[in-house]
């Protein structure tokens, strides 16, 4: 089995999508000759030409607005926003048009648009380079939102996103771009919306996504040593949410801990807590614990280790929840 980084897997996904579907376009800032600041688009312009893989002016709203027009003309745009913190100028086009267009036209015009956003923190980035934007997209009806945590999932989810007739926001955990995984890149597997149990256990369910998945697995290992068997769930899709899986895990373990980088208030942990309560109230033996970023602007590099959920914070929350 070949070993592949998430960045290379995403590159392969774009390459395969461009090859298989002549209507796919890839554009963004510095994604052509440079190959993207994270090299995710490395070599694509050379391989597919500047008509299908091209740089745009620095104009996020215009980039996404153009994707709407391109969709009307029968093209499938895969737009890269350079960093999470620079997705906000595009939010109006996403919320007001990309998410609403199909509804507005009673299904006559679909929006097969993919928006890739290198996301989250953990890379000692500058201000605006470590943001968790998922809440803004997940709350917006009409969008799908996926977050890969491994290279193989990154390939599969990006392929699914590009093939999806509806708009999909792909949040790529920057901190995991260089993490490696063994295996064949394939699109086979469950569709968008399916989470998965990465580690089984009956003491408590740890629900997470993105770069926090690795930390939760570490915490679970740590706790295994203490005789606590935590189940780790990688959501993979934040919209739609795998509510059935959340429900069954909550009912089976009776205890749930949610972990994410985004600030606490109205982060995914809030929705997951609510779903868990709706699905498994009578089975809950402890309140759902939220281990998240704090309700502050993403801090400078020197402080990010105190902002991001640490293995110890996660482990402690699991202990508390199991002991409750």
């Amino acid at each position: 089995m070949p070993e592949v980084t998430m960045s290379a897997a995403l590159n392969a996904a774009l390459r395969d999508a461009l090859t298989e579907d002549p209507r796919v376009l890839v554009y963004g800032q510095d994604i052509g000759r440079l190959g993207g600041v994270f090299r995710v688009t490395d070599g694509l312009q050379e391989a597919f030409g500047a008509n299908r893989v091209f740089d745009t002016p620095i104009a996020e709203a215009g980039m996404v607005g153009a994707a709407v027009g391109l969709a009307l003309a029968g093209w499938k745009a895969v737009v890269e926003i350079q960093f999470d913190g620079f997705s906000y100028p595009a939010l109006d086009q996403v919320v007001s048009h990309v998410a609403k267009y199909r509804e507005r036209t009673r299904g006559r015009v679909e929006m097969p648009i993919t928006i890739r956003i290198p996301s989250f923190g953990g890379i000692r980035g500058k201000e605006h380079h470590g943001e968790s934007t998922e809440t803004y997209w997940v709350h917006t009806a009409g969008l799908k939102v996926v977050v890969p945590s491994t290279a193989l999932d990154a390939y599969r989810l990006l392929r699914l996103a590009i093939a999806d007739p509806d708009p999909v926001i792909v949040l790529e955990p920057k901190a995991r771009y260089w993490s490696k995984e063994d295996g064949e890149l394939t699109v086979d597997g469950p569709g968008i919306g399916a989470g998965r149990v990465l580690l089984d256990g009956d003491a408590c369910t740890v629900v997470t996504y993105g770069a926090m998945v690795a930390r939760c697995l570490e915490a679970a290992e740590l706790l295994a040593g203490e005789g606590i068997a935590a189940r780790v769930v990688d959501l993979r899709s934040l919209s739609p949410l795998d509510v059935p899986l959340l429900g069954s895990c909550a009912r089976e373990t009776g205890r749930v801990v949610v972990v994410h980088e985004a600030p606490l208030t109205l982060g995914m942990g809030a929705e997951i807590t609510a779903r868990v309560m709706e699905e498994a109230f009578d089975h809950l033996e402890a309140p759902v614990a939220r281990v998240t970023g704090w309700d502050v602007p993403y801090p400078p590099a020197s402080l990010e280790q105190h902002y991001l959920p640490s293995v110890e914070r996660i482990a402690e929350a699991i202990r508390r929840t199991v002991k409750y």
Partner: protein
Amino acid sequence: MATIDPRGGTEPFRLIAPDGTAVGDTEVGLEPNELRELLRWMVLARRLDRECMALQRQGELTVYPPFEGQEAAQIGSAFALGPDDFVFPSFRELAVALVRGVDPVQYMQYHRGTWHGGPYDPRATRFAPICVPTATQISHAVGYAMGLRLDDIAACAIAYFGDGSASEGDFHEAANMAAVFRSPAILFCQNNGWAISVPTTSQTTGEIWKRAEGYGFPGVRVDGNDVLAVYRVTKDAVDRAHDGDGPTLIEGLTYRVGPHTTADDAGRYRDEDEVQRWRALDPIERYRAWLLASGHADDAFVAECDTSAEAEVTRIRTDVIATEPPPTEWMFDWTYTEPSEPFLRERTEALGDA
């Protein structure tokens, strides 16, 4: 000849003076029957616009944004488009929609509150859904034009927007991208003097058509109440686009004779004499006078325009009033192509409740 535009500034391109006399080469390449069509469309458009105002007063529409006074800007430009050219309107382009063959009854669902602005088939009529967030439709037009270029199709996209909308960043990003990608896009600004209660003079201190040079493509200012002049400059822009010569910015100087919408009270912010000054520049009377003088039409045709418009509008009125509110499930039927299980649960709960 001094500018007749009370707003002053650069004299716009004009072929027919307000009194109906030709002041330029009126040979714009249209056949007599096409020249007559222009009048027929404008008469129908105005008659329908006024009917919509009435329908709203009668409670048949929720709100309506009249375009009276802007018939020439809309009909003249729409008439210059080819069948494959795609229109990206704002919310005041009903006259353009008519020319594009959009079913006015479908279109009116938006103003009736029975659906959003796109229940008709935008691809079939090459007319995008009504767009409310100002200037956001311009990048849609540019993206569509980029797609045409990639497909090597000799067609173009035209975005309609107002003088106020041109202040939005979306205008700038779209215009600049159109230039960079040499897209067959036409940016048509209907400068009707007002953005709700804000006059164009408080919206910008420059002239909108002049912005084009900064982006590196042609800009032109035209008398938006001279249907022949509007047709001519738009046709030139369409030809440039079809020939691969890139975008054009057109500023049509016209005037919103009515309120911003039926919910607006224009008396609060503008004098009636300004409105009267503009009524004297009426696009329809001007063109009718020229058409009769030129011998391309006679009184019989003029009269027939009115009667046929009356008949057409009566039919539309009846059908609009007959439009039923949509079934509740429509609220859920087009959010996603393949709805998820949690989404379907909401649908079930809602329909149970409805």
